[in-house]
């Protein structure tokens, strides 16, 4: 037994209540009950953690303080840093970001014979896509349809979703699965070839496709290899974009990149630009730990906003209900929703269920926060709150060995710290997981700024105010491909060498001065700073 003695006693309470709970079906909440729970306990409703933006297209909008600081900051770039008359590279399509959306866009644009450059802050494939475990949704079974998928999404998103984007997502979903298979992605299948699919939170059909619990990693390594195997795609690693470039009339014409290895700025001229930089969990909103990749610092939002792009739903973040609460070395890391899909229940200190395990993520997270706030949680020796996730139930419900087969990544993650998840429950607490909002796009990923497209987590609208499990991997593939197609079309109809200026940045700086904003903060953040921190909130 790996838990300290103070927790072991509580674990035995869980073991004892298992027989009873096997027969127990915890009821789902009604719509009104959900709304009350969210209002009382979801972090999105904590007003003191938000500011109103005072500059830019979303002036007046409620925004998390951590993001507002960066959105209202000055650029990293000084005019003397670069020479706009001599761009280092020219291309048709510049893709900023090397995760799922960026790679899907680059491959698709390459298919259409465009000259593509893909730049990324860290290595190709360093992205949240790599870390997504649970699965990817697509309505491809006989009892399902894109229409049913549509309804699940729009209800899960609290009816705030942009209908055209949802339509694109569900209609392209089976095509995305087909495309991923053609690239070599190995989905879990039955011997007859049919997909093994399971439920996710908020689904009305079993349409979660999985690749063990390495779904995102499996997708990402195939995409990465495909990008690398195409000689015409130029890949620039460790080269984040730090500023977009515009024509005098405000159209996008390229970007300034920073080579992190050499600490040198350089210029790319592009006929169209796709931002696919992902989310912002590493801003640690409200001090939450995060399941996100090290690079998830919201850079693309900053770039787009300064160039005049409008954001939407930026006041809503997804807190994944089950982040690790113990051991402290991996606090905040993801415990995939697949664990609950397979049958694990959530329990408070008394060994009682308090929520149907597959409510949508915002609802489950709020219920866990409630249990802890009302002292029915479990406090770890490090002082971190959590509730039990009863993983051994999976073995009882689905047979011994299921966990090892279906959740190998998770077994590894916990075995490394001495916890056997097929025998012992684990402690979890919500972790900052996903940026529900982002840059406003149309179904072809176009923004309100000509020649600027956005795909994936950096965009907003498709998931409304809450994303369902398995729709993010789907989002990056569907909209990554759509962005690739549209970016090539736009580039093909544009003059060859659009003018490169930083006029928008000059305007931005003028506005900062006019509003009396004198912040010393520079953005985008690029790299989080965890030096000399001992709080343990960042695994």
């Amino acid at each position, binding site marked *: 037994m790996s838990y300290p003695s103070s927790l072991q006693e509580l674990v035995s309470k869980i073991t004892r209540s298992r027989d009873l709970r096997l027969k127990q079906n915890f009821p789902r909440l009604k719509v009104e009950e959900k709304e009350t729970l969210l209002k009382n306990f979801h972090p999105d409703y904590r007003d003191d953690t938000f500011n109103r933006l005072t500059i830019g297209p979303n002036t007046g909008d409620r925004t998390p303080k951590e993001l507002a600081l960066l959105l209202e900051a000055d650029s990293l770039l000084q005019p003397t840093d670069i020479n706009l008359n001599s761009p280092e590279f020219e291309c048709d399509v510049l893709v900023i970001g090397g995760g799922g959306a960026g790679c899907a866009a680059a491959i698709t644009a390459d298919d259409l014979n465009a000259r593509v450059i893909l730049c990324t802050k860290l290595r190709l494939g360093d992205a949240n896509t790599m870390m997504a475990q649970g699965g990817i949704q697509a309505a491809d079974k006989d009892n399902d349809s894109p229409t049913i998928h549509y309804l699940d999404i729009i209800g899960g998103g609290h009816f705030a979703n942009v209908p055209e984007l949802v339509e694109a997502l569900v209609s392209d979903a089976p095509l995305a699965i087909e495309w991923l298979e053609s690239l070599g992605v190995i989905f879990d299948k039955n011997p007859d070839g*049919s997909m093994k699919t399971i439920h996710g939170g908020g689904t009305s059909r079993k349409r979660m496709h999985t690749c063990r619990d390495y779904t995102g990693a499996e997708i990402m390594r195939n995409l990465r290899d495909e990008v690398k195997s195409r000689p015409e795609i130029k890949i620039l690693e460790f080269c984040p974009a730090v500023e977009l470039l515009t024509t005098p009339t405000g159209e996008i014409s390229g970007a300034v990149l920073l080579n992190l290895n050499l600490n040198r700025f350089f210029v790319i001229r592009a006929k169209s630009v796709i931002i696919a930089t992902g989310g912002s969990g590493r801003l640690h909103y409200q001090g939450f730990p995060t399941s996100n990749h090290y690079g998830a610092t919201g850079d693309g939002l900053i770039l787009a906003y300064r160039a005049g792009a409008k954001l939407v739903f930026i006041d809503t973040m997804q807190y994944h209900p089950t982040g690790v609460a113990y051991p402290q070395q991996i606090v905040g890391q993801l415990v995939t929703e697949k664990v609950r899909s397979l049958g694990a229940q959530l329990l408070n200190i008394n060994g009682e269920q308090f929520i149907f395990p597959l409510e949508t993520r915002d609802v489950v997270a709020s219920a866990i926060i409630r249990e802890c706030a009302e002292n029915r949680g479990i406090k770890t020796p490090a002082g971190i709150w959590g509730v039990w996730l009863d993983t051994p139930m999976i073995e009882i419900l689905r047979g011994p060995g299921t966990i090892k087969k279906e959740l190998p990544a998770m077994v590894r993650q916990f075995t490394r710290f001495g916890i056997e998840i097929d025998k012992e429950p684990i402690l979890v607490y919500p972790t900052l997981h996903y940026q529900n909002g982002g840059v406003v796009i149309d179904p072809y990923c176009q923004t309100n700024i000509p020649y600027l497209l956005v795909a994936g987590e950096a965009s907003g609208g498709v998931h409304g105010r809450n994303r369902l499990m398995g729709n993010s991997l789907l989002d990056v593939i569907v909209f990554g491909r759509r962005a690739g197609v549209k970016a090539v079309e736009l580039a093909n109809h544009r003059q060859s060498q659009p003018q490169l200026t930083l006029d928008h940045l000059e305007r931005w700086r003028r506005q900062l001065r006019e509003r009396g904003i004198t912040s010393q903060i520079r953005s985008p953040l690029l790299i989080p700073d965890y030096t000399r921190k001992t709080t343990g909130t960042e695994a």
Partner: protein
Amino acid sequence: MSENLIDIYIMGEFHRVPDSLTILQALEYAGYRLIRGVGCRGGFCGACATVYRVAGDYHLKFALACQTKVVPNMQLAMLPFFPAHLPRYQLSELKGAPQEVLDLYPEMLRCYGCNTCTKSCPQDIDVLGYVSAILRGEIPAVADISFDCIMCGLCVSRCPAELVKHHAALLCRRIYGSKLAPRSPHLTKITQEIRSGRFTDEITRLKKLDREKLQELYAARDIEPEE
């Protein structure tokens, strides 16, 4: 974090750090703001492959810095990049024959079975097992055994026969997924239906509904039972 401090050596440099930290957290505690050697921080991306020794033990040890606690007197260095060639191929042009893998990675035949690769794998994958499967031409077995590979390259760094085995395994998985795995008839069916526009009208109708009506439909969904 507990304040029990221990001594470690980062690339030879002495640091005193709390014993509760992972290697990655210890680097940051020591003052490193990393660009290389850090990635997902969750054991999925292979960016933080680390080699270390502990005082008094000649064995070389292997770990992911984000998933491994520091131990007293460890001497560590990260291997954020290791040279590994990637032959150019177009998956769509391959047939899926085992010989194609060996044609692209002929050095696989140099393996002499020392098993150092398996010992160096931080994922505990039977690396030699899948290399043997490559040599036997059993692509489905390679795909299965190597599936949890995070491509950190530690096995490549240690291979005396200089095999780039994690790339060869990836090629096998891609061949398996795209050419050998059984097809899904339901997927073929629905993609055809979507291309023929079968659901367009239905979805257009939903798009036009107001919130109240949508809420009603949502509440009335029939939910596929678990079993």
